[in-house]
């Protein structure tokens, strides 16, 4: 074969490859209200951050749209003869985006990394004692006492490439709240279905299909991987986001404002999927500081008085927020546990009766007959109509005499106020999703005293050592009946404390072009690899 014919063959092959590529190419522009806070897989335990990271990195196992657990980088897992040791069989033949093979060393490295002090994922791994490699594709996790629910805690725990991390000096997790930076904040090397092409924080992230993805192809447990290129854009203004979808500029809007659902559902060529999210929105307050930073009351903390919390609880008209602010798209709540969670009960979720007169009386009884002043911190790009919820709350509290100064800002600075130690907010709005579907996750992050591994999102400074011990005990309780009894007892105490004032369980709406079908998942986690193209 002479040189010329080799050239011809090569050209023909290239043309063929090109045709195949275009036939298979489907780009998707995906708009959200806010961006991932960082790409460091272990720096932030936050919904939108996980959502983007899931396209690039993979955990050992994931939850599907229905909330069911599926194998990802692990193929199987079981408890060994020792009930305190779990064994995970890893998927063979998987490669990271840079070509490095995926092995047990990477799993050991990643789980160790995620337990570092600066990691925000450490709160999920409190029960882990040690992670050891058995062979290249087997890992054992030893827990402090038996933990039958361990796999539930691993579905947002991404596996990084040990070699890559060491080479790029990102062995230490980014300290997000100290506004530190590292290589993995902007760069990524996962095993996931998409590779990172470029990223401009808060503007645009471009992803490309990982053609060597292990799960691609026909057969059981395989994924369609229909989208070849993803452009993830941040469009903060609701109307602009909706307009972008109507004009065809974007294909998929993950945060549809409730007021626009009807309009989008009626628009030709578009469809809207609506479903409940495993997340509850609530107000939290500093109940333990001797004095609030933003209040006109000096020398004491009004929120420390339970009567004040009770007054706020009955001053908030959740049904009115649902009707006016959420346009019917929310489920008013009496508890911060979403209905998906083990430990949720209808009784816990009963709504308090709105009673302005009684709230005023309670405030007077607590020594604030004229009310008081305080600043409410609120995100404006995280939850559905979050700033509107805060504003409505501000009005309702004004009716009982509490003058609220509202500060609504993007989630980055907002979450920093909450996560800083000591917290820099007296009164805040937060939404808490529960990826483990179990109450322990709520207790551990939101009620446990803030310390080494627990309480990282507990900005209320609520602290009860007896409760803390019971919370930690949950991770090693094998008897489901006893465990549930402890959960019920904890809720009995904690719900009564009213450190958080539940508002509603969030309802999600996704809007997309008709040739796509992305169902709403309770985790609000979109896995683009599941998307087929019609």
């Amino acid at each position, binding site marked *: 074969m002479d040189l010329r014919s080799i050239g011809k063959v090569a050209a023909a092959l290239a043309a063929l490859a090109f045709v195949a590529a275009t036939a298979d190419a489907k780009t998707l522009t995906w708009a959200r209200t806010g961006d991932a806070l960082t790409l460091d897989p272990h720096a932030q335990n936050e919904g939108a951050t996980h959502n983007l990271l899931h396209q690039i990195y993979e955990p050992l196992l994931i939850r599907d749209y229905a909330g069911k657990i599926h194998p990802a980088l692990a193929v199987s897992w079981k408890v060994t003869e020792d009930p305190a040791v779990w064994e995970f069989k890893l998927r063979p033949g998987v490669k990271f985006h840079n070509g490095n093979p995926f092995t047990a060393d990477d799993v050991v490295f990643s789980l160790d990394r995620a337990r570092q002090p600066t990691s925000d994922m450490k709160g999920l791994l409190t029960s882990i004692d040690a992670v050891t490699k058995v062979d290249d594709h087997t890992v054992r996790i030893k827990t402090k006492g038996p933990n039958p629910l361990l796999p539930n805690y691993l579905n947002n725990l991404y596996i990084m490439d040990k070699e890559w991390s060491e080479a790029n000096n990102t062995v230490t997790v980014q300290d997000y709240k100290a506004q530190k930076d590292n290589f993995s904040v902007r760069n990524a090397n996962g095993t996931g279905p998409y590779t990172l092409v470029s990223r401009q924080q808060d503007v645009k992230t471009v992803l490309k299909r990982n053609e060597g993805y292990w799960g691609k192809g026909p057969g059981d447990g395989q994924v369609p991987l229909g989208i070849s290129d993803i452009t993830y854009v941040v469009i903060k*203004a*609701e*109307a602009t986001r*909706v*307009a972008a979808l*109507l004009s065809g500029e974007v294909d998929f809007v993950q945060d549809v*404002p409730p*007021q*626009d659902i*009807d*309009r989008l559902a009626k628009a030709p060529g578009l469809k809207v999927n609506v479903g409940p999210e495993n997340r509850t929105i609530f107000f939290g307050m500093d109940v333990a500081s001797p004095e609030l*930073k*933003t209040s006109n009351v000096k020398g004491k903390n009004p929120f420390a008085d339970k009567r004040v919390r009770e007054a706020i609880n009955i001053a908030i*008209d959740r049904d*009115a*927020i649902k*009707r*006016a*602010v959420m*346009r019917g798209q929310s489920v008013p709540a009496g508890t911060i546990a979403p209905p998906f969670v083990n430990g949720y009960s209808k009784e816990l979720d009963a709504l308090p009766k709105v009673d302005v007169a009684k709230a005023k009386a309670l405030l007077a009884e607590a020594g604030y007959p004229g009310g008081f002043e305080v*600043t409410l*911190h609120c995100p*404006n790009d995280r939850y559905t109509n979050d*700033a*509107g919820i805060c*504003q*409505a709350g*501000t*009005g*309702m509290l*004004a*009716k009982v005499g509490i003058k609220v*100064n*509202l*500060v*609504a800002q993007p989630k980055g600075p907002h979450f920093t106020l909450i996560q800083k130690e000591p917290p*820099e907010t007296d009164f805040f709005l937060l939404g808490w999703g529960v990826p483990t579907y179990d109450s322990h996750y709520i207790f551990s992050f939101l009620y446990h005293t803030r310390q080494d591994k627990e309480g990282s999102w507990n900005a209320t400074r609520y602290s009860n050592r007896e409760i803390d011990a019971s919370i930690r005990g949950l991770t090693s309780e094998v008897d489901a009946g006893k465990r549930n009894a402890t959960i019920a007892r904890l809720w009995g105490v904690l719900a009564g404390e009213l450190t958080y004032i539940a508002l509603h369980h969030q309802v999600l709406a996704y809007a997309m072009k008709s040739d796509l079908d992305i169902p709403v998942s309770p985790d609000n986690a979109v896995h683009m690899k599941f998307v087929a193209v019609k």
Partner: protein
Amino acid sequence: MSETPPVIPDGAMRAKGEQRSDPGPREAGSGPLREVPDSLASGSASGMTGRWLDSDLVYSFMRSKVVVAAALLTLLMVGAALLAPLIAPHDPYDLKTLNLVDANMPPAWVEGGDARYLLGTDDQGRDILSTILYGTRSSLLISATAVLLATALGVALGLWAGYAGGRVDALIMRIADVQLTFPAILTALLVDGVMLAAFRNGGQEAGKFWVLVVSIGLAFWVQYARTVRGVTLVERNKEYVEAARLIGLPPVKIMFQHILPNVMSPVLVIATINLALAIITEATLSFLGVGLPPTEPSLGTMIQIGYRYLFSGSWWMVAFPGITLALLALAVNLLGDWLRDALNPKLR
């Protein structure tokens, strides 16, 4: 003061004299907007009014129906805004009175509307009409204060640069040139961001007012400084300035007492046109979410709130504040335009 009266009218007469096509008699006090000598100030009011009504300015004003309409509209809106607490049916800043039951109501004449809320309500149950009145008030207060600040700053720096010349002039004017390369809104956003970061967690409304005033004021001083410097360069070589210098008056006194009155007419024009710009800038900042908080909306904040509901059929939330803002800016702009033409001798 005894030496100033002969000097100032001289400068005034020159400026005024140039506006007339015919040389005209150069009697003192023919400039209606200028300082009236003591002898005339004590004279009868009707004499002054008569003189005023007789002037070129009033003549050109009455001649244009558009300008009269613009002036009436401005007066009406400024009056309504200033009297907002007295005439507004509700107090939209009093959160106690808001009721979410009344949220998202269309205007009274549309089906589902309520007579209590003539122009409808927003997502928090605020009466749109009352909020427009209060919002216009905040917008006008902020813009007017900001324009005053910009004028004071620009005039002072311009006078100084023009009078002192040399290095001072070069420094001030280079700063002005650099700032001119940025759009005003960018400067305002920058100042706003820096000040907000400095007063983090503040969020108090009084603070917010001054943040906006300073942001807008700092964004607009350049134009004044450049104009005033130009005029000052011409004026400082005039005999009256030399005379003042000869008798040993300090430079500050010469600048502010002798030169300033002669540079005020272009400043007046810029200030009027800038007022419209400042109103728009305030609205833009509020629209972008760095202006007045949603609990005390200005026109821009209202448009931002209403804009969220643009696709959901609640058009009234954005339409009425939008129309108000457009009319206000247009009216003030027309007035400014007219004033510029009326005071520009070359356009006669």
